[in-house]
């Protein structure tokens, strides 16, 4: 049982990172970035190529993944989302655009990288062992521990950035009220771009972290996006604390489910549970009602 909880905690940390990225974009732009999972996948590929193929150190490859995806985010925002948001007559347009970018990224990756599952050599070796494994003890491998620690560190870093720096305050102001923020002299356009870049960068970071444990293939995007939607809906869209709680909850639910149930039944139950939950709490745990 301890083993299950450890697995859950590791997953929870990374999932929270994924959910934070999605919620960041949503809170600033009111757009759900459907391509979030595909950005995760691209981040994983950046680490795969830089670290796995070209042998650069991991601590170079990981920030490179985040930076590369942040750039993709900036470009998407500038060329795809801003024109649509500026000219749309129906609110569906921006969402369809998000779906379109997801489709584009996924198929671009399929064409360029192929369908093969790929992994990278472990960054660290060894494991922490708690108690006697044969008698209910548990193992936390060093790669897992590293992933969880780096994910938790990134989350703390992001929270500190949003809470205490000037751009961070601008982000929160724009999320609360665009017009009021503009009146206070916040550069809304630059802040929106920053928000999208951070959101995309977080997806890349999460992908770059998890590739060291699970590997990657071009098709993981939809899967990750779906998980991110679950977390964000449970916690409440656009709420930072909600994303973290949602991520941790899903991590534990998944770890416990995979331990007790065969294969894909876990996710069937998670979906059903989520739909029932949303019937009673349509705005999630911490969300505010919105149209």
């Amino acid at each position, binding site marked *: 049982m301890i083993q299950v909880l450890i697995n859950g905690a590791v997953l929870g940390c990374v999932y929270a990172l994924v959910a934070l990225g999605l919620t960041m974009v949503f809170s600033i732009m009111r757009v759900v970035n459907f391509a979030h999972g595909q950005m995760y996948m691209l981040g994983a590929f950046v680490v795969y190529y830089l670290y796995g193929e070209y042998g650069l150190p991991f601590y170079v490859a990981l920030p490179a993944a985040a930076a590369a995806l942040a750039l993709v985010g900036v470009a998407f925002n500038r060329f795809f989302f801003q024109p*649509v948001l500026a*000219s749309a007559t129906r609110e569906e347009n921006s969402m369809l655009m998000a779906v379109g970018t997801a489709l584009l990224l*996924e198929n671009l990756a399929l064409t360029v990288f192929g369908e093969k599952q790929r992994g990278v050599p472990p960054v660290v070796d060894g494991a922490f062992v708690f108690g006697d494994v044969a008698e209910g003890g548990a193992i936390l491998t060093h790669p897992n521990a590293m992933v969880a620690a780096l994910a938790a560190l990134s989350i703390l870093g992001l929270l500190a950035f949003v809470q205490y720096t000037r751009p961070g305050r601008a982000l929160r102001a724009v999320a609360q009220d665009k017009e009021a923020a503009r009146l206070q002299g916040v550069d809304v356009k630059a802040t929106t771009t920053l928000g999208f870049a951070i959101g995309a960068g977080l997806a890349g970071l999460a992908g770059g972290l998890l590739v060291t444990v699970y590997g990657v293939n071009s098709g993981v995007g939809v899967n990750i996006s779906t998980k991110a*939607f679950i977390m964000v809906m449970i916690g409440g869209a656009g709420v930072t604390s909600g994303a973290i709680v949602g991520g941790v909850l899903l991590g534990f639910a998944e770890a416990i489910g995979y331990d007790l149930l065969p294969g894909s039944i876990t996710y069937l139950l998670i979906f059903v549970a989520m*739909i029932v939950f949303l*019937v009673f709490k349509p705005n999630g745990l911490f969300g505010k009602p919105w149209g």
Partner: protein
Amino acid sequence: MNPLKKRDLAIALCFLAALAALPLAIGPSRYLLSVLMNCAGLSVVAFGVWLTFTIGRINICQAGFALIGGYTTAIVLSRHGMSFWLALPLSALASAALGAIIGSFILKLRGIYFSMLTICLTEAIRLAFLNGGEFTQGSRGITGLPQPFAGESPLPMYYLAIALLGVALLVTWRVHYSRVGRIFRAMRLNEDLAESFGTDVWRYRVTAFAIACALGGLGGSYFAVFTQSVYPQSFTVEHSIYYMLYCFLGGLEFVSGAMIGAFVLTLLFEVLSQFQQYQTLVYGVLMIGVILLLPNGLMAIRARALEAKA
């Protein structure tokens, strides 16, 4: 009748007439007919998505309901030996009933929440069929379904597809250009306002969703006998997204939009079939291009000029 509605009707009727007359002109070419049958089936499913757009909901679970319709048909055909002509309406009914039940809970969600939830719902329905044990035969699916028509000629099946397309078009047309359709539009523009004017919003949106799901089930049932098989992978999130793209490409303001979008995209890719490996990539590029350049769809081309003339 306003000129846009008139044009909508004219295009829809001409299109159906052309489809019906086509085999006489080109002879029963099996390949071309099967492409058109595919288009017709996709249009039937896409009409459902189009209808949920009119109440202001982005429906990404249509593939799930097509899957329900497909499995209903497959199960009653292969296990109970029921006639296809009973199985077809039964599948639509089963999808509609499930849609009404699920919809009565989830339709209170709006906007992006609804879309995210419907994506999860498509996945959930697929997983349910995947884990259905002997009842749904898991990932092996149900294969070897009997065909409704004896004989070699593809023509009866072709006319069935066209007839279903006609039915779907008629249903959507009747709903959209009626009092109910006006209420749907009012709900899309402002649900709270519509409610304050005494509209039973809950009832109408469940109705809309149930009709949409029925069309999905009808299409799913048709595809099950068309391909003589159904698998959990037959209809996935990706398909749901394509249905949405068809509606959007055709135009969300015009009833024939869903049909035009489905035919244009599917035929386009048959023409470009040597680029098959890039097909889905082109879909992605096209989707972005259409949203940027043609935000109101193909059917809206020259719509402004027509309106000004009237």
